[in-house]
């Protein structure tokens, strides 16, 4: 039994594995990775920004000891950048070379038909593996011992690109017209797709994936996450700041602080040698957790109540 198989044996072992890599996850998340591994299905991860969608893929790669191949999506991404591309410069160069040596090649050829058939041999060479430039998706398929493929922010790409993904996601293969079908090696990649929900992903794509929704964590989970990520922070302060953030999420904000913001804030407070929250300090460091001036202004009035609430919760 290999390391990977051992890790993926049960949801609990996966959870422990993640924890060892400082990624604290819920049962739901661990189950998703478990099913992804055993059913060989890609996972589409959705959720608000900053809840650890990309991090999940990265940590999985770390934990399984597999290389991570990442494809960042953006508007205008096409197959030439995602799957493969011909090395056209090299092809052009070779055409020139061929032209110069044409006489030698054709030497002794009897008649036109034979010349053409000799030339045909070269034609195929130009579209062979030799001239193929693999891009992330093709690279992932060719990885011998498997890999973790992260297709990040798939909602940013165009509809056409989504359709391109379908083949690789359902069959782990890519069809290149000139060469044929490239299939994954014995170990197909573990695929994660992330989406920020800026637009609806097509049903065809969703159908091929497991769908994991990561919401904001509850207070308990968030505390454990902070503990794992910023271990030096005193427990009382940790409780206070988590309570504060959790309450903040209930307010009507333009951008709600996510886990990454909580972690940043914890680091900031640690750097400032804070022992316990107070309204003044919160006001000064608010720009770490809130990214819009409007939000900061709106929250300002609430700071005192929120802080005292957090303090009383922390004392418990």
């Amino acid at each position: 039994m290999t390391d990977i198989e051992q890790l993926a044996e049960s949801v609990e072992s996966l959870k422990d594995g993640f924890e060892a890599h400082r990624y604290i996850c819920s049962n739901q998340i661990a189950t998703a990775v478990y099913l992804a591994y055993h059913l060989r299905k890609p996972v589409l991860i959705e959720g608000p920004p900053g809840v650890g969608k990309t991090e999940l893929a990265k940590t999985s790669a770390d934990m399984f000891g597999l290389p991570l191949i990442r494809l960042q999506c953006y508007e205008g991404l096409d197959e030439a950048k995602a799957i493969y591309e011909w090395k056209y410069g090299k092809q052009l160069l070779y055409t020139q070379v061929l032209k110069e040596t044409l006489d030698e090649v054709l030497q002794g050829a009897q008649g036109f038909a034979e010349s053409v058939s000799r030339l045909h041999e070269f034609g195929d060479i130009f579209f062979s593996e030799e001239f193929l430039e693999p891009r992330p998706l093709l690279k992932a398929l060719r990885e011998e011992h498997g890999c973790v493929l992260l297709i990040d922010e798939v909602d940013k790409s165009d509809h056409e690109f989504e359709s391109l993904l379908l083949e690789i996601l359902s069959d782990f293969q890519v069809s290149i017209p000139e060469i044929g079908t490239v299939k994954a090696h014995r170990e197909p990649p573990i695929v994660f797709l992330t989406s920020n929900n800026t637009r609806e992903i097509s049903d065809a794509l969703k159908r091929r994936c497991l769908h994991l929704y990561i919401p904001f964590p509850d207070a308990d989970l968030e505390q454990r996450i902070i503990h794992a990520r910023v271990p030096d922070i005193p427990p009382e302060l940790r409780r206070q700041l988590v309570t504060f953030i959790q309450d903040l999420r209930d307010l009507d904000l333009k951008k709600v602080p996510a886990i990454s913001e909580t972690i940043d804030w914890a680091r900031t407070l640690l750097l400032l040698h804070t022992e316990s929250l107070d309204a003044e300090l919160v006001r000064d460091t608010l720009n770490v957790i809130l990214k819009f001036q409007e939000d900061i202004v709106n929250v300002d009035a609430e700071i005192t109540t929120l802080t005292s609430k957090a303090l009383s919760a922390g004392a418990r």
Partner: protein
Amino acid sequence: MDRTLTHFIAALRNADVRISPAETLDAMNALELVGYRDRAFLKNSLSLVLPKTADEKETFDTAFDQFFSFEDISTQTATSETEQAGEGEQGEGDGQGQGEGSGGGKGSGGAKKGKFAGHDEEEDDLGPGEMSEPRSELGRLLMLESTVELTMRMAEAAKEARLEEIQVFTQKGLYTRKIMDAMGLADLSREISELRQSFRVPDRRLGQELKKRQNWLREQARDYVERQFLLHADATGRRLREDLLQKVKLSNVEHRNFRLIQEIVFRMAKKLAALHSRRRKVFKRGQLHVPRTLRHNMSYDGAIFDLRWKSVKVDRPKVFAICDVSGSVASYARFMLMFLYSLDEVMPKVRSFAFSSDLAEVTELFERNKIEDAIAKTLRDYSGGSTDYGQAFADFRKLCMDDVDNRTTIVILGDARNNYGDPRTDILKDMYDRAKRVIWLNPESRSTWNTGDAEMRKYTAYVHQAEECNSLMHLNRVVGNLLRAAA
């Protein structure tokens, strides 16, 4: 077992979760891997495979809990320990009811009678200790305390009894009986009565335990039928209501149906978005595509003379919505705004204006708030005052006539009842000349368009299209046209 899953999926579909056959197969694979033993694990796994949006996940959660809800057998039996005598009594009576039920086919009557016809036989207190193994299949399942497996069995039995055909609530008793029979009640009852007459203490102990669990199972079956009745009967009723709501006049929609209508609007909008987002792009000349040009010209000895171009996106439709929000039209404005803003995926450039007497832009309100809140705020702030189309047009000209260009579509929603004021058709004409299209939607039926103080005749001269629009069906068609023309 698989049939139970498909049954569950049917219930999910009933609750508007879209599940394809491919996903059903995935669910079965997942099921094979996960098994039925751990309920939370099963729920987690299925929720990864079946629902594919956050909303659907919520629906899934409740549906799963309803469908697979089984009270924990061990806690149930523990509490019933104290009422052992009573339990025994009822059990005895039920045994009798069983015979009658299968003979006469009146299950519910049998069960009811059982309660009264029970003998006064006291259970011996046998105490805890060794128990023998049950022989009948159902007995084994009961003793295993595997609630999920029992649920699956029950669902299967329900399938055999054609529970999904249940129509009226008076059939509940009948179906309960049928399900118990299909689950192998006859075998279990026989086993119990045999065990109870046995001389060995472990056998009798098992008999008692089985009887207790049998009663518990009957309760569960009754609950199950109840839930399924709600699940199936409710859905058909809802579908009927939805069909009706699509056709009903929007001003007549009762307040309690607003939520449902909103859901319909979102669904319709989603359908439209899916239909039109695909043909948003048209191929047109634009930037030079260097790799493709080079590759293509390789056959010409690398001399570049046949150029290849990158595709260029055509602008998405720009829509200006001008809504009359005075009392008579407000309810229509509500739904139209809802519709337009549900389509932001394919129509990101909607600007909206509201007026009754003075006109103001409310775009920002919609950007910053949830749709429902924005609509409520709009109606609150702008719906007072008497309708003045002339003033509204003048305000519009001042506000943003310069932004109207030949890609803009202006949609005006209003009844054109101007209180005998100046209609200011000159401004409308100006809009007509500048914009790509001007569409007037009138919630009144065509025959009343020109009665009283309505200025519809004058306005129709300066719009590309005037439509009657007072139900969701109409709205859907109009917005669909909007998108088609833009593509």
